[in-house]
């Protein structure tokens, strides 16, 4: 798949440059391609690289944003009680993107004014601004910081001001890195062409992250029919144990 992506990247100038050259006087635009628009999650999924590439009609800087559907996390806080560290309050934080990757060819603050960054949702501080806390803790800011830190550590939130490579002012490419644990669904991929603090052109695409095959079937089944799932799994484990045990006893 990656080979295919690279090949396309190499062939792209042949198709795009004449168009881009013609369009240079027309409205700015950008052409976006991805190595693949589908990510299959199996039980062996350990994260994944996504190649993003495209062509620009006008010179400028490029910002690539990948945003996943909303996720939820449970956060617990430990409090000191005598010599012991005891789990205290538990807060469920929801309604914020589970994965957010912002890659750009130059640091964001150098290419876009703050107001524009906030409008496009590129401000790391604003990622959790619509998040819901259940129950609402006293100092929500500390909990928000904890969620942000955990997401960054996990690789779900990534801000790379040098993550987009521009070649000849016409072609760009970027590597998105999906973490091992990620929400499923339709991810929004937005690419912006920016010049002198203004967005000249933008392109949107969705990338489907989905569980496939047996994994999807089992996950769905375990979630929707938990009792039946429990009974079937237990019977399966028992017969597996019994069957293998009998085979091994015969052998020895």
């Amino acid at each position, binding site marked *: 798949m990656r080979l295919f992506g690279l090949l396309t990247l190499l062939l792209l100038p042949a198709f795009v440059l004449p168009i881009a050259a013609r369009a240079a006087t027309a409205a700015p635009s950008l052409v976006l391609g991805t190595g693949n628009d589908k990510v299959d999650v199996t039980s062996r999924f350990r994260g994944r690289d996504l190649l993003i590439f495209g062509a620009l009609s006008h010179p400028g800087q490029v910002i690539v944003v990948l945003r996943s559907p909303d996720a939820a996390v449970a956060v617990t806080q430990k409090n000191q009680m005598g010599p012991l560290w005891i789990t205290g309050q538990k807060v469920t934080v929801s309604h914020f993107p589970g994965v957010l990757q912002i890659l750009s060819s130059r640091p964001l603050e150098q290419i876009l004014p703050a107001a524009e960054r906030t409008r496009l949702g590129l401000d790391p501080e604003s990622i959790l601004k619509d998040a819901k806390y259940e129950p609402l803790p006293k100092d929500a800011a500390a909990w928000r910081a904890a969620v942000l830190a*955990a997401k960054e550590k996990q690789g779900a939130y990534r801000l790379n001001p040098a993550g987009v490579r521009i070649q000849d002012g016409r072609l760009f490419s970027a590597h998105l890195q999906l973490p091992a644990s990620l929400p499923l669904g339709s991810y929004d991929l937005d690419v912006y062409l920016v010049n002198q603090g203004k967005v000249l052109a933008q392109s949107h695409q969705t990338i489907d992250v989905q569980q496939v095959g047996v994994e999807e079937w089992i996950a769905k089944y375990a979630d929707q029919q938990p009792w039946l799932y429990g009974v079937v*799994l237990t019977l399966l484990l028992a017969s597996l144990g019994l069957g293998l045990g009998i085979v091994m006893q015969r052998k020895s």
Partner: protein
Amino acid sequence: MGGGFLITPLLIFVGVPPLIAVGTGAAQIVGASAIGSYSHWRMGNVDMRMALVLLIGSWSGGLLGVHVAKILERSGHFGLVVTFLYVGLLGFIGISMLIEALTAVRGKKKAKPAKEKGSSWTDRLPWQMNFPVSDLRTSLLVPLGLGIAVGILTALMGVGGGFVMVPIMLYVLKMPTKVVIGTSLFQLLFTTAEVGILQAGMNHAVDPYLALALVLGSIFGTQFGARLGARMPGEQLRLVLALVVVAVAVKMGLGLVIPPENVFQVVQVL
């Protein structure tokens, strides 16, 4: 013993959320104990009447325990309770194993427990009942209470409870050893099956891939271990196991007293 009391803490150490570790730990014992249970049943080592009374207790205990687990998990305290239970339990088991193993390695004679001949306290309880296979007459309340305790332990700790049941059957009820092994295996198979189903149904706490891997591992591991164990002196083997148990208890205990790097713990909710 099923070894469940080591599997669940190890799962927690590698980062499996405590409730999933406990639920999956119980479910995998079903697979791991199926063959032993079947063999002992075939050999007639299962006291069915005793097993049924135990099961009535342990199924009630399991139901209660899974409910408690659900309430604790909702308030965010399940992990803490599990840690406390394991520190206490493993600390106790590990130290008694260690003392026993050390005396055995030194070659001292094992102190025989004073043989009781007269009536014990269990004879004075109401609802006396005969258990012919175990050659025993005792109150219904003893196996019932034992069952409830084992069921709660299975639900809250993901263990089979053999380490509680076997000593009590041997030393309190004074059942014959082979009946103790057969009956306890048989009842823990059905107790863990019940708890596994409840944990999946009520708490979504059984991971299928983890459970399968653990069952496969324990079946092959038992074969391998049996061959290896045949070549190693039993006392030293027990000493190593005792040290492992104590080490796990200490590691869990340290988790309670060492200031955490981060006071916030963030867990993905699916």
